């Protein structure tokens, strides 16, 4: 618990934490505002369905979550790789081990703190996202719709938890890569490569790709048809059901953490 809370304090002070959150919220704001302006300046009375879905609640709730799920996956890979890699690069893992700290406990506590920070980041980004969406809708001149829709709001907590879980799974992949590479840069580089490599793998491994970490993550959060793009993310021929995908996500999460712990435990730590 001591390491977990110390790591949490450390992550709050870490510039990468705020840069990652800033990127997420900044890109969301940029996209929403650009779409709002183009919608407002478009032909009066003609609204494209995408824009209406984006600015009209309750579907807008799901769009924001969809955005966080998509970009958040990649950012979480990079963030966790940065945290894990820097422990090796800066020699802070060495300092902890030389004080007699358990390598397993240190790795798990560090990752647990990363998971909590990601959860807080998702909550903050989502809250700001809803605010920005309302603002963008006003700029676009689109009616905000029904903000208090009980059906969508009722499902939202579960969808948020699932989003957090799959983002944590993707973070675990980045964490494991950087641990094995023992480097921030290598971890980030390989993490990006793996993320985009998996998207290309759809061409070569159409049947297997659904079991890969990023595809399974997308399939595990069922945002329904209302979210447009979200509905098709995990869909397609032979896509996993959300429940199946959640099991695959859990397997990847546990596997990545085990790999990180085992590698840290067995490795020789350089000076």
């Amino acid at each position, binding site marked *: 618990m001591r390491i977990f809370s110390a790591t949490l304090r450390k992550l709050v*002070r870490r510039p990468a934490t705020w840069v990652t959150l800033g990127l997420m919220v900044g890109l969301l704001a940029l996209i929403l505002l650009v779409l709002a302006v183009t919608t407002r300046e478009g032909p009066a009375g003609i609204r494209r369905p995408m824009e209406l879905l984006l600015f009209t609640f309750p579907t807008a709730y799901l769009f924001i979550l969809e955005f966080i799920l998509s970009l958040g996956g990649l950012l979480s890979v990079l963030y966790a790789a940065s945290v894990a890699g820097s422990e090796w690069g800066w020699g802070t893992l060495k300092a902890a081990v030389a004080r007699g700290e358990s390598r397993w406990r240190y790795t798990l506590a560090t990752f647990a703190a990363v998971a909590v920070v990601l959860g807080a980041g998702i909550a903050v980004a989502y809250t700001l996202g809803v605010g920005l969406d309302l603002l963008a809708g006003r700029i676009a001149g689109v009616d905000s719709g029904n903000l208090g829709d009980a059906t969508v709001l009722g499902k939202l907590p579960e969808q948020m938890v699932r989003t957090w879980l799959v983002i944590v799974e993707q973070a675990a992949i980045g964490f494991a890569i950087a641990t094995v590479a023992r480097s921030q840069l290598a971890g980030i580089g390989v993490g990006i490569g793996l993320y985009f490599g998996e998207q290309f793998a759809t061409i070569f491994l159409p049947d297997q790709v659904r079991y890969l970490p990023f595809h399974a993550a997308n399939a595990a959060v069922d945002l329904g048809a209302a979210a447009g793009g979200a509905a098709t993310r995990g869909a397609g021929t032979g896509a996993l059901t959300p429940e199946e995908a959640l099991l695959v996500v859990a397997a990847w999460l546990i596997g990545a953490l085990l790999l990180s712990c085992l590698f840290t435990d067995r490795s020789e730590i350089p000076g």
Partner: protein
Amino acid sequence: MTDLALATHGLAKRYGARAALDGLDLAVPTGVVYGFLGPNGAGKTTTMRLLTGLIHQDAGTIELLGRPFGRGDRRRLFDVGALIESPAFYPFLSARENLRVLAATGAPTRRTRVEELLDLVGLRERAGDKVSGYSLGMKQRLGIAATLLSDPKLLLLDEPANGLDPAGIVAMRDTLRHLAATGKTIFVSSHILGEVRQLADMVGIIAAGRLVREGRLADLLESEGVIRLRGAPDEVAAAVAALGAIVAPAQVGVVVEAGRITLQLSAERASEVNRLLASAGIFASGLEAGSDLETLFLQLTGSTAADGTFNPAGVGRVA
């Protein structure tokens, strides 16, 4: 029998085909300042890493504070403080925050300890500044503070004087001396022989991964058969000629410009040398018996100032 704070027996470690350590035997008594010397690549840092469990030996055993230390014995390190190579900190945190984060690992640490240590190493006024803005010397001082967090019985310091200014070196020496006086054992690897000479009670010298000499520093220097003379540069040739009666030319080293002559003769023969020179009408301005640490180090490791090559001159231990 003396209590040993640290002992290794036949410690061996290879990196591929290269043997970093080749049967290292160390015996460090409790409560001493032990200078661990060796040329670059001799195996000093590898030894430090093995002693802190960062890497694992291929052969041999380690005893820390009287008990075996191996995989799974990490709690033994609760009584050990280590600074290995460069100090490791989070650059975006302050000195105080770094110590607090580190204190959350390993042995439990008193809450007030961080402030005590910031005072001890003279960083209290800059304790709130980010470490990324610290000089190498300040990071080194913070590194020494970090080793003391859990009030360890044994300190392992790898080149602790790195980056310190003269005042910092003196302060570090005083701090280490004070810690040794409180019964702690301090194991210091260093390249700065003058520093070790002033600080260490004992030294161990390694070359090519093996111990070539270990013992009380004073005993080691006295046991070496060296007599050093200093005189007028224009009298050096005459002095060497006169000394030819008792010492072979191969055992004489001369630096004419400095008026220095070094003789490979036992210390007891110093008065004989003095008498011989006086009878030849030559009067030395200085005469010392016994080696200095630099001469001993170069002699034992076969190092040269030019390339740091070495040729170990056998293994020995002075009681």
